[in-house]
């Protein structure tokens, strides 16, 4: 397995997912590192690069879940501050802030669907949850965004 190539190819994508789930730069880096440790340990055989990507997301989100459940190792950064660190444009900051205010499970589904372009069935497979649960989380996320956009930008 070529660790360096895999990190170069996938770590930005994993970073986007983990940072919105964990809200901490250091915990995000830990989650990504553990993901790639597992990648080296398991040496999984992939059908194609999409398969590899989905495997990495699955492992990374599992690590995020473990970190959330058992060991937040680093202090979480306030949402406003984190949004400001991640993006500079005001409108982007609002979108990121809105995302970060959602429950973590909802954030993961939103990012996988709207940012990484996965369909409901695929997300269910990656996260190990039912399609119904994915739909519900997307629905709640959409409602939250719709409310915000209506208030902030549609006046």
């Amino acid at each position, binding site marked *: 397995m070529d660790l360096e190539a895999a990190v170069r190819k996938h*770590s930005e994508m994993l970073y986007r997912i983990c940072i919105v789930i964990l809200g901490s730069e250091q915990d995000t880096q830990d989650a990504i590192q553990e993901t790639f440790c597992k990648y*080296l340990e398991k040496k999984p055989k992939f059908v194609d690069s999409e398969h590899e990507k989905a495997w990495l997301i699955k492992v990374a989100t599992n690590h995020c879940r473990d970190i959330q459940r058992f060991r937040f190792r680093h202090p979480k950064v306030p949402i406003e501050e984190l949004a400001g660190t991640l993006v500079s444009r005001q409108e982007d900051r609002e979108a990121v802030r809105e995302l970060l205010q959602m429950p973590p499970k909802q954030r993961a589904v939103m990012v996988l669907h709207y940012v990484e372009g996965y369909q409901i069935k695929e997300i269910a497979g990656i996260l190990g949850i039912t399609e119904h649960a994915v739909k519900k989380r997307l629905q709640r996320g959409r409602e939250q*965004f719709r409310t915000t956009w209506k208030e902030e930008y549609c006046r």
Partner: protein
Amino acid sequence: MSEMNGGQLRHAMKQVHMKENMQEEIIMNVRTQMADGTYRRNSFKRNMVSAAACLLVIGTVSIPAYAGYLGLRSAITSDKVMARMQEVPEAEVQDIYNMVQYEQRSFHADQFNREYTKEEESRKEALRKEYENGRFPEGTLTLVENAGQAVDSDQLVYARDTGCFYLPERALTDEELLQILDFNSKRDFALEQNPDVQQQRQEAWEEANDSDTLR
């Protein structure tokens, strides 16, 4: 969510990037964790990977070619480089092997007195391809016994006692980058001549053949 809002979220998140150097830190930390047993479970496969990574980590901070060594094949994938390595005198191979053994006991990875610049990184990558195609340095990397001898800030040297590359303050020349690549190939080669390493590789092959395909 309307199309505009989905697009807005996508646009915003695509602006999110890792901080500079995080990729390098991740690569280095993963290799270190695999090598020093920080990431450890009680499986034979993990032990095998850790053993291989322990060899791997020497020089891996900057030399991506080491990634190939983690598993099951030689880190030296170029026939031209391999032919060159086979011309290295046996005494030199033994000396390098002893040095690597010392490095393994003492360090997790090479040290550098400064980071490569982006320009050097990119040139090194290009030169690595040329190196594998037969463009070799005219000279060899200067090795010094201890860091105290690395006093000339204009000279590239490697200090054996600290496992540290002292890069000159100015930009590295192509010749110097080739010397670093060559030095790392020699370390790979020296390691691979060791019977223990050959045994590990054999076991890794057998382990890989038994591993499950991801479902």
